């Protein structure tokens, strides 16, 4: 084992009365990829913020490349050789590749740019990445997302970094882009850099990492070589208890048809999508990023305009939406208010900008779509609402101080539970869930799977969009694969394998109804 390029020891950080980090130590060896694993709120991001200079630790020391390292801020950390690649990219879209790479570290004299030196630096960085094909003067806006990420990595390289931290770098990448990224990471490893890789996906970690360290509740709880550890080992370290079942299943049987979609086309996608959805069924939708899965849900929900096609909503006994009798034809471009009243509920893939009103309370966010039970002549009975919300919080294990706590103060997993609680509280009969498990920890994921099973057993119909194939195949009754806006194929879940889904998802010519 090579000597560590970065050593963090005894790092402690508290915010008010709570300890975010307690005596955490981390050694990042040169020429290896270290996975940093932990549930949401375990302290990974705080630790990385300490490393990147955004937070200064209350106690503890760091050495980088043999020298003591105590950055005064993000810029100092970057100059000292710490590169951060976040989930969300930090690029100036209108600047060129070169300008973005050299941003904040421009070479020049008397305020004039030294283009030649800069270009050489950019060249070196791109060569190291194995992507010398990237043209330095293209505006970043015109690049696909995977290449934008390369620009970010190149920026870190151009500042001669010793350590690069990848924080959930694959969440917005397609499968093939992920492979490319991993190739890049391996190249960086061979170049002798220390790499920290943060991800929720154990499969990914197995593919690209050599060793791991696990954080739980702000403390280091274990680590070592990946080859010596099983997935179960790692997961039980993460959650602090043994997890016997990652995909708890609740028995449920599909019943009569509740929604019949035929020939639905949106502005650009979906294209000519037809399927039926039954009570008590979980229909999974797989596909690459950009295959039109989100657009399909948005069309169904009325957020995006549909061009052609029809939706037929059949109503059976016991559903809340009964005012239109059986077999109602649903308008193609209705107001969302109408859709909600027809029993549709959508959980957005984006909690921050769409899914939740972050500054409002849990109670507000949970009940926006159905305030009727608590109102009379437009006036609310807040006490009754509070009781009901507290009840839901308990059912979904939402951890918060009170129903009045604002959503922005919750961890990602708890926020997601609030978003899901809303559609459940709404008593929607058709749940459209767009990546409901993105960015949340293993324990919460399992809770959400169980919840979905329970809802299906209670007669709800669920459409479940996800990029995480394993969960789709484990949780759904049927899985449809989308590509370029079309439904390529729809099969019972057990007839699919991860490979067969991928091969259909990447196929272009073959069209199967």
């Amino acid at each position, binding site marked *: 084992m090579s000597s560590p390029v970065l050593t963090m020891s005894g790092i402690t*950080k508290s915010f008010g009365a709570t300890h975010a980090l307690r005596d955490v130590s981390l050694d990042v060896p040169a020429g290896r990829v270290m996975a940093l694993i932990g549930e949401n709120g375990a302290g990974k991001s705080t630790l990385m913020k300490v490393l990147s200079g955004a937070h200064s630790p209350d106690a503890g020391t760091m050495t980088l490349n043999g020298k003591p390292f105590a950055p005064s801020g993000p810029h100092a950390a970057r100059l000292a050789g710490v590169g951060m690649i976040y989930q969300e990219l930090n690029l100036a879209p209108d600047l060129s590749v070169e300008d973005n790479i050299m941003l904040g570290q421009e070479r020049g004299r008397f305020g004039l740019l030294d283009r030649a030196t800069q270009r050489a630096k950019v060249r070196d960085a791109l060569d190291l990445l194995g992507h010398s094909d990237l043209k330095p003067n293209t505006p970043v806006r015109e690049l696909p997302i995977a290449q934008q990420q390369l620009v970010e990595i190149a920026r870190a390289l151009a500042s001669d970094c010793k350590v690069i931290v990848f924080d959930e770098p694959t969440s917005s990448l397609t499968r093939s882009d992920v492979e490319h990224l991993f190739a890049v990471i391996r190249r960086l490893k061979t170049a002798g850099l220390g790499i920290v890789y943060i991800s929720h996906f154990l499969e990914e970690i197995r593919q690209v990492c050599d060793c791991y360290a696990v954080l739980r509740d702000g403390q280091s709880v274990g680590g070592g070589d990946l080859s010596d550890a099983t997935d179960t080992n790692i997961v039980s370290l993460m959650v602090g208890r043994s997890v016997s079942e990652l995909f708890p299943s609740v028995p449920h049987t599909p019943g009569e048809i509740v929604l019949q979609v035929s020939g639905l086309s949106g502005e650009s996608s979906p294209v000519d999508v037809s399927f039926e959805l039954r009570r008590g069924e979980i229909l999974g939708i797989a596909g690459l990023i950009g295959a039109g899965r989100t657009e399909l849900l948005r069309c169904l929900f009325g957020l995006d305009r549909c061009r052609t096609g029809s939706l037929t909503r059949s109503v059976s006994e016991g559903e809340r939406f009964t005012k239109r009798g059986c077999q109602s034809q649903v308008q193609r471009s209705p107001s969302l208010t109408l859709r909600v009243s027809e029993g549709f509920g959508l959980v*957005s893939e984006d909690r921050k900008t769409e899914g939740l009103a972050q500054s409002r309370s849990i109670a507000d966010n949970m009940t*926006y779509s159905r305030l009727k039970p608590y109102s009379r002549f437009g006036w*609310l009975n807040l006490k009754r609402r509070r009781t009901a919300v507290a009840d839901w919080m308990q059912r979904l294990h939402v951890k918060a101080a009170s129903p009045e706590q604002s959503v922005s103060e919750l961890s990602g997993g708890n926020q997601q539970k609030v978003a899901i609680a809303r559609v459940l509280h709404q008593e929607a009969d058709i749940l459209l869930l767009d990546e409901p498990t993105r960015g949340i920890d293993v324990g919460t994921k399992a809770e959400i799977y169980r919840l979905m099973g329970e809802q299906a057993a209670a007669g709800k119909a669920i459409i479940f969009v996800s990029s995480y194939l394993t969960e789709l195949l484990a949780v759904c009754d049927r899985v449809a694969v989308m590509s370029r806006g079309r439904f390529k194929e729809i099969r019972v879940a057990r007839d699919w394998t991860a490979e067969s889904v991928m091969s259909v998802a990447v196929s272009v010519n073959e069209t199967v109804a």
Partner: protein
Amino acid sequence: MIEPPTTQPTSGYRTKSNQNWMRVFNVVGPFLALTAVVLFFAIADGWMNGEKATFLTGRNLMTISSQTATVAVAALGMTVIIIAGGIDLSAGTAIALCATVLAWSLKEDLGPRWFANETTASVAKSITEAKGDLKQIEREIEALAGGEYNTTQVAAKLMAKSDAEETIRQHERRLTKLKSLSAAVAVGMSLGCGAFCGFVNGLLVSYLRVVPFIVTLGTMQLYLGLSKQVARETTVRPDRFSQVSDGLVDLLSVRADALWLGLPSGVWLTLLLAALLAAVLHWTVFSRYVFALGSNEATARLCGINVRWNKIAVYTLSGLFVGVGGVYQFSRLTVGNPTSGSGLELRIIAAVVIGGASLSGGRGSVLGTLLGALIMSVIANGCTMLGLQNPVQDMILGVIIVAAVALDQFRQRAVSRKP
């Protein structure tokens, strides 16, 4: 099966103490600021004017409250708009438009003509005539008293005199009634005009999907033009004696006999409206939608909230408050001046922001807004007491607005800075 975790995770609570502190600060902050400003001027006034210090007298405080009323009442409506993530730059000119329409309605005798088929002018003329008659009779009585007289003649004249006096009283009663009728209709016109202005703003904002800043920048000019049109490019001056009801003028007067329970009735009305609005913002379904719109419009849409109609409702509601502001404006000026509202919108918005509302929406309170409006009036009044000139007042106000907005940004960063 996964057991629910037994250990309490830290993440949910991490920023709680910080947040609670923020919450307390949001409520107490404007109070502290107001107290500080009042103390400052009280001390400065005492120091500079010595025995003659008047800042901290009941009468002066009452004056301040009455000076605040127009801005405060319009700021109440603006609070709702700003919570919903919007802004209304047209509030100032809309107030002037409302006041002008009110004045015009009084001048044209709309109420009496529509509902009594009479004009105040004709009654006023009858009064003048009756007074002329009375003078004539009095002169005749004097003439009789000078020479020989017989009792029957004098008795007849005295009878005629008392008849004439009675006629005058009747006409005056009639005129008072007509003035009240006229005032009621005019106030209705002002409220309707305000609501209409708000409705137009809401309609444009929600259907054109242009940012409210630009839309209301346009309507600001539009309403200015409209009020000039109504006033035919001058100032509308209803006759103070025959056309303007006393109640309307005394709304914000600090004259002892115009007070009601120790405060001008307009100030009471403002407080009443504020209490009502605070209740609405706390306990209604509508308020949840307002906060949802300001906090995250996409979420509101996702939850099936009718975004368009709620926006229109928000702007229309605010328009009603602008209408009340128009009544106050007229009450202070007793004329309808189309340009009297210019710049008012900035003071209204400043009151809301100083009161702790966020210009990016989702946060704001009625109490804060009232305090914000008061702070500005106290500063204006205090500066006058200290003999500071108008330019200095403007500069101080500017600094305070910048400070309030900076504080808002600081608060937002503090909230969004998650460890």
